């Protein structure tokens, strides 16, 4: 069809024009991508933990993060506490939230088909988003910390201060989580439940309890990530769903159930999107993330750092 030829020609992803993009731009963009990616990674970490252990696909992940962000905003407006200081309390609140949700709502759904879990969490997501809309209104809200506009200059490199702090916090929280799973009794027990459900039951572990614990941890993670993200973006009730999708892309790329994988996936996606935005049309940069997702799904579904599914 003659009509297709112009169509194909116009689906062009523009490359940058003639001006040579200076090398330091690449460096800046890359560093920015890595830092942002670390925060995304923490967000995805919660999802990875939940799916890796409880085997529930949390489609309300982004919405839970939005909830945490709004709690942070409320506390900030009331007490003027820096978000990073509020990290632990908010993560704790989210832990309780996640725990309760798991016990009350999700437990019966663990054995049910995927689409049922999906619907349940979609419903939870709808309730959260619209509850936030009713409570806080649709206007964009943000926290104004004193260092919101700071940046560090190291030679040609300009590093965004808030991104740096958020990334550092993300690494610290991830390390704490990792340590928990590696070195504590509860953590080991949870890993046992994940590896072998029946075996765990046999040795007398209260699997339901640990599932709840895990969901709570996952919620705490995403809550912490949300608080950090608040330093970088502003929040509206409708923010959630896009982040749920992003979390899935990262988790699958990095490896479901693998914690370092989630961070690595986050960095990879953050970096890819940043470079794609630089080299091609920024409005299409998400396409690259999805392209990577498809490749991973096809060629290495367990993700970069995941273990081959049993």
């Amino acid at each position, binding site marked *: 069809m003659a009509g297709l030829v112009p169509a194909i020609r116009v689906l062009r992803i523009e490359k940058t024009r003639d001006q040579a993009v200076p090398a330091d731009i690449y460096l800046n963009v890359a560093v920015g991508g890595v830092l942002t990616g670390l925060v995304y990674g923490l967000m995805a970490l919660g999802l990875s933990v939940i799916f890796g252990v409880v085997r529930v696909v949390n489609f309300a992940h982004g919405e839970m993060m939005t909830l945490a962000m709004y709690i942070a905003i409320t506390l900030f407006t009331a007490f003027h506490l820096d978000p990073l200081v509020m990290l632990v309390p908010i993560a704790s609140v989210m832990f309780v939230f996640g725990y309760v949700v798991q016990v009350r709502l999700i437990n019966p759904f663990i054995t049910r088909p995927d689409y049922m879990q999906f619907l349940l969490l979609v419903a939870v997501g709808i309730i959260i988003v619209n509850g936030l809309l009713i409570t806080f209104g649709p206007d964009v809200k943000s926290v104004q910390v004193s260092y919101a506009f700071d940046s560090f200059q190291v030679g040609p490199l300009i590093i965004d201060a808030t991104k740096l702090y958020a990334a550092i916090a993300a690494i610290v929280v991830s390390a704490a989580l990792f340590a928990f799973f590696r070195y504590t009794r509860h953590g080991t027990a949870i890993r046992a439940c994940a590896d072998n459900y029946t075996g765990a039951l046999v040795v007398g572990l209260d699997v339901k309890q640990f599932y709840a614990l895990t969901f709570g941890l996952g919620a705490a993670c995403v809550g912490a990530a949300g608080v950090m993200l608040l330093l970088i973006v502003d929040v509206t009730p*409708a923010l959630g769903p896009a982040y749920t999708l992003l979390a899935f892309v990262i988790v699958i790329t990095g490896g479901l159930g693998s914690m370092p994988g989630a961070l690595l996936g986050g960095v990879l996606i953050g970096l890819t999107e940043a470079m794609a935005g630089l080299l091609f049309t920024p*409005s299409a940069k998400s396409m690259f993330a999805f392209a990577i997702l498809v490749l991973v799904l096809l060629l290495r579904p367990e993700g970069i750092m995941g273990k081959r599914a049993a």
Partner: protein
Amino acid sequence: MPRNKQTYQTRRRFNTGFASALLAAGIAPFNVGRAQGAALKVGVLLPRSGYQAGIGQDCQRGVDIATGVLKDLGLPSLQFINADTESNVDVARSRAEQLIGEGAQLLVGAFDSGQSSAIAQVAEQKGMPFVINIAAAPPITEQGYKFVFRNFPTAPMILRDAFIDQKEIFAAVGAAPKSVVFLAENDTFGVAMQKAIPGVLPKFDMPYTILDTISYDPTARDLSVEVSRAKATGAEALLVVSRLNDAILLTRELIKQRWTPVMILSMGPGWYEDQYLKTLGKFSDGPLSFAPWYDPNKKLSKALDAALAKVHPGVNLNTNHVYTFEALLIAADAYKRAGSSNPQALADAIRATNITDNSSIGPGIQFDAKGQNDKILGGGIQNRNGKLITVAPGAASNGKPEWPLMPYNKRA
């Protein structure tokens, strides 16, 4: 116009939630009869939930202040039936049908081009007048509708006036950028503007060249890459089409990446909105926005400003309020002239509208054969100390433009 057989759903509606404003203004609630002299039933369709909720609820403020102002102008009263399109075209269409079924005699809405287009079809098919408050996609008034009217400029019109106003400002301050980089969001409005530029720009002989066009995802969480690219072009000024979220993100990035363009020329919403001013404080001063706007020197604008201050203190009067109000003004004015709520009579009356004492910039509200008000002029606004000064066109301005942008790192 052949009307289709309908069974009207008569149901008492107690819209107490919204009626608080109405009752405060002393308007009688629900009238069953359609007798002349009764309030005209206007269905207001806006995205009050969903992703466009912020803008929809802002437009609603224009409805909130309408009753008192219309009464002061000696116009017949309107009874509003609010509907939420939920930012969804299916819902928009159903709500429009429902409103008509409940006896709405005129429809106003709906901010979004896609939803407005769906409602327009329902309105046209039923022979019910529909006044569009805000929607910039040109095709809506190119369909040959007889019942659809738009009191809002199309994207090409907005662009044309943006350039005219820019040249006026350049002349007034005696300076102009030689190069700009164009950052545009990739959504309906942004794309319409991007498409219109190649056709419109050459006609105006602008003093600058566009070094690069960077189109970005409007739901972007992070615009650092886009700003890096923009900075790398070496352009003097930033030409931008964005919305509120992106405007805030872009400004933060400009500050963090230590680049203050000579000026930010915005050809759309975002940079003048309350949230932008509140969130960024002193960093919000300076950008020039070119958008459909109100004429601050007109009497009606002052009345609207005062009414808004009473009902929603602390909120600056803006495009959403003014154009939504004007849609209602058109309805009330037509109702008065038509003397009846018959849809055909209303539509004819609307087509003959000639309101010179309006609020938006331009000679007034008149419609051409396609139902479009092609006389609207765009304005130039500048942020100054948390307030908005209209700096162009000269006849509608209430202040002088300041140039260039004060560097971000010098703002104490």
